[in-house]
């Protein structure tokens, strides 16, 4: 399995990368970690004449804790994200994902930007970030466009990124005190298993401990990270209980749109969505109540 003949361009600034993107259009692809792109090229799922490496663009690196949000650069690797103190302290749901994603070798290469921009339905970060109300930061020569992340995903491997745009990172709003989120996934193996089904959940509790705001986001069971609105809305205004979660789990199951493949049937995936929804909500509420980190 070899890579096709393609020219490698190493862009050092966003402007240069954008210019190259515009010049080559659909015959070019951006290269960051390469764990998706190189595999797709070898498997001939994708064919390109130009590969534009953005690995040398310094602006895309690093995690910054700003006043109202956490900004994660597109080139931050999964390992860097996992080791980031700000993330460890304030966003344990992200750690749920980083710890279960692929393996060391891939986590050291793969980037946050790639995990989002590739828009692979079973990717782990998209549902977590959607549950955390993240926004996609898109740069073009005309300026930065900020898009709620749930609007970034249009379909399997399709996003709202325009041809001249580069995903520079994501912004995640600062977590308020009674907020909790969690990510729970099911893989067939303990190590290095693609998610068969996954659920990210977040809850904001009010002063009485009732659910004020919530998101249930389904992964790997729909072409895009699916914000399960019926399930999310059913949580609002109620005290979190197992019975409520069971009801919400059923709603989430109905909102899943899974496929049958080598990893499991659609029916099995639906069943998993129910179980994982209840588990993710339980864990998220525990975190909101500071019972569990």
């Amino acid at each position: 399995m070899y890579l096709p003949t393609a020219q490698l361009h190493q862009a050092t600034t966003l402007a240069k990368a954008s210019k190259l993107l515009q010049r080559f259009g659909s015959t070019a692809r951006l290269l960051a970690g390469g764990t998706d792109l190189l595999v797709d090229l070898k498997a001939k799922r994708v064919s390109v004449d130009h590969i534009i490496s953005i690995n040398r663009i310094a602006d895309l690196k690093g995690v910054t804790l700003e006043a109202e949000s956490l900004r994660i650069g597109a080139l931050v690797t999964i390992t860097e994200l996992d080791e980031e103190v700000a993330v460890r302290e304030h966003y344990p749901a992200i750690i749920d994902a980083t710890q279960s994603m692929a393996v060391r070798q891939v986590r050291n290469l793969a980037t946050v930007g790639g995990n989002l921009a590739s828009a692979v339905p079973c990717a782990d970060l998209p549902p977590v970030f959607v549950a955390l109300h993240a926004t996609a930061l898109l740069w073009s020569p005309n300026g930065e466009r900020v898009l709620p992340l749930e609007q970034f995903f249009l379909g399997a491997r399709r996003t709202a990124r325009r041809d001249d745009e580069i995903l520079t990172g994501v912004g995640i709003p600062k977590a308020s005190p009674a907020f909790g989120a969690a990510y729970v996934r099911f893989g067939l193996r303990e190590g290095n298993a693609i998610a068969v089904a996954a659920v990210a959940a977040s809850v904001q509790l009010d002063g009485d401990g009732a659910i004020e705001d919530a998101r249930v986001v389904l992964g790997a069971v729909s072409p895009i990270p699916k914000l399960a609105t019926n399930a999310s809305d059913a949580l609002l205004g109620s005290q979190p209980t197992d019975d409520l979660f069971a009801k919400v789990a059923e709603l989430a199951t109905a909102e899943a749109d899974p496929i049958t493949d080598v990893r499991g049937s659609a029916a099995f995936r639906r069943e998993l969505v129910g179980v994982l929804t209840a588990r993710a909500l339980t864990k998220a509420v525990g975190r909101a109540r500071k019972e569990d980190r």
Partner: protein
Amino acid sequence: MSSVANLSVNGQTYAVAVDSYDTLVDVLRDKLRLTGTKKGCSVGDCGVCTVLIDGRPMNACLMLAADVADRKITTIEGVACEGQMTPLQKSFVHEGGVQCGYCTPGMVLSATALLDRRPNPTSDEIKDALAGNLCRCTGYSGIMRSVSRCENYRDNGTCAKTNHSLGEKQDGRSDYRPSSRAATSVGVPMPRVDAGDKVTGRAIYTDDITLPNMVYGKILGSPIAHGRVKRIDTSKAEALPGVLAVITGKDVPDTQYGVSPARYDEYVLARDKVRHVEDEVAAVAAIDERTAEAALELIEVEYEELPCVLDPYLAAEEDAPQIHDRYERNINTHVAQSFGDVEQGFAESFHVREETFTGNHIYQSPLEPHASIATWDHDGTLVLYSSTQVPHYVQYMMAHVLHIPLGKIRVIRPTVGGGFGGKAETTPLDLCAALFSKKLGRPVKMVYSREEMFHHGRGRHKQHMKFKIGVDRDGIIRSFASEIYLDGGAYSSFGVATAYYAGSVLPTLYRFPAYKYDGYRMMTNKPAAGAMRGHGVPQPRFAFECLLSMVADDLGIDPVEIRRRNAMTSNSMTVNEMDVGSCEFLRTLEAVSEKAKWDQKYNKLPKGKGIGIGCGGFVSGAGYCIYRGQVQLSHEKGRESFQKKSIFPHANAIVKISEDGMAAVLMIGAAEIGQGSDTVLTQMCAESLGIPASRLRIRSEDSDISPLDLGAYSSRVTLMAGHAVSRAGVAIVEKLRPYAAGLLGCDESMVEAHNGLMFARDAEPEGVSVDSVPSNSVAWEEVARKYFNDNGPLVGTGAYKPPDGLGGSYKGATVGTSPAYSFGSAVCEVSVDLETGKVKIDKFTDYHDCGTPINPLAVHGQVEGAVVMGASETVLEDVQFDEKGRILNPNLHGYLTMTIKDAPEIFSGLVDSYEPRGPFGAKEIGEGSTLPVLGAVAHAIANATGVWIKDLPITPEKILNALNAKKRVQEPASA
């Protein structure tokens, strides 16, 4: 598009011309010749290409070389410091962290990166750090030990200060004359003789070899499962710059080949029909592999598509598509065996139970892909480097297809990265490389991609099994009948033997008064199934073990107890005339149930936890050769009738002593494929010579150097090759006897050799030291020199033939015959998530009767590897096909094998045993250790969930469906 990249590798900066599309792994291997970085899957699933970039492990197959310029790259060659192994590498050598060695460089690098950050990691941290490095041999147990005990090998903190040099032999091999009188080579846990090379990246596998002027070949496969080849146009491929030759079915010999002589049914390339997806139709040779791959896409093939059949039952129907003209109703092999009165047995039974079980399509998935390099000498000798476990059969088959004498074929078996039966036959790579090389007059290398390995197939036969058992009130077996349909795929391969094995080995474990077996090996439009670890037996054994446990529950008898009551004992003849010598099966049962605290756990664990038992055993070498008659070009042979004896010795060895008497070279063609045969043969030969193992070197890789050995299959090497090497050693001692007697002034018959000394039997030396020879003895080397002075070369030979007359006289009686049989019992403990069906295999306890172990470290390594491989195939593995016969998961992210995180904790124990027919009392361990595993896992899951899954693999989905079905039955009203 070439540019110069400055690559910083292992502290050196190299200016390398790279193309945009060159991945780091290819540049390291092909341009810098750092072949310690391996290729296994090319898409980041297996981890054998792991390198450190700025100290972090990454997959070199997923990185563009040009994109990593100016980052600090460390490969396995850069780990050892100033020629000294690091403590971690030493730990891998000593703790059994290495077997085939193909995963080892990546594993060592991942562990090195971990220890640099976390000097004393927890076991969870180790597992997380190594989960990206697949291993198929060790069961990860030796690897866990190696990393967690690394501290013990740290001498004064830095590797530069240690006393171990890379070339030095460790432990049993560390002194040229061990000072301990008790020092012995056999029975000690000696580290592998090749471990040092494997942990440092120096071991050379076939794909690591580059010959001058070498070119590369690739094979084009069919896109359809069944069809006629109407037309092939190769002109566009031939016109591609860099393409040197294209061959199709019309260019290959009109000679069919295969494994079983009665069923040769494969052509090198399709001459008329294609019978499975990716069946070989054409091949390209080009200046590099990339060009050859590109040229495949330019070959135009027109097919007349035929209906395909993928199910063995449907294949047997009257109107099913006929895959081969010669196999009517697609029945490749039919076995009909009956012993005793089966019907009477059922009629007299207190309880009869009938169940249907289904196996799965398992693929060996060794980490090293198959590879071959062919080159022809000017005198017309074919030199073939092949990643094979059966060099002799490859030689035999090459001779058959190419119509040249065996003597004109030299097979070289470089280091092999695992086989498990998947490398037990001649491949299209061997044959096409030879044909191309002949045509081009240049060496030709051909390597399978991971996907091509799956399409080449030869994995375990999927078996559909209907079993019926009758027992008396006490659970004693009265009668047993089985009907098995084996899904054979499109060619015979090993299938004839597989079909017989599926029946013949079951009666070696429990006494069957009456036994009937009907087997049908069916042709289907899938890649051919072949021989895999346990050949034909694991799935029937799984089914039988499950059935026996079900029957025990039916009767209220403990599952261990029912096994005890039916267990085979020493010196028994089975119902199908297998001659069982030593048998300590009962001891394994007793030991395993005690160690695992069976009585305190069975049916006493909390919900979702389960414990189960499974037993099994296997042959210690096939009693008969795969082909009949003598070693001779098969075209020259007449049709030969079967004789109930071995025509020629199955294992042969030569020992040559160096002229100074200081070294012995052992030459034997036994195939080291990672299982450790080079090491145990070294031990046995050294023991019989009376010298320390450190003075012996083994040459097993070259048919020009080493005499015939049938190879690594049917768990034959320890017993058969072990005898040959021991006898060769004894032959040397016999030659030295008169010279020693002269020097010692004793009678010849009194001379003994041990530990590098010769002495009179009643005057065994004391106070042996490295520097001096005790007065009542003489140095072994001194005696050898005296011999050389008078006679010239000191050479000894040894050979082994299985005993004459093995087996009965009924049809198929040869399959399953063996000089000796192994036995084992395993207890498995699992946790099952009852909401998702997910199984975690927590623990395995295994006791085996492998005779007297030659090397306990190697024995436990085989058991640990078999437990994980067996558990993995029980719960995870399955090659899946769509309705057109295309494989849906021909890769290591779709076909899942266990990672280090999935592997259970394993206790491996041995019971005392001595096999009179084995060398030093030894039997086999490699395959028998797989057999108890599947049933034990299935039983434990049934125990945890309350539902039996009789259809492999036992996936979470099947468990959940069964639990739901049970719930529906129990609460029909509420639903």
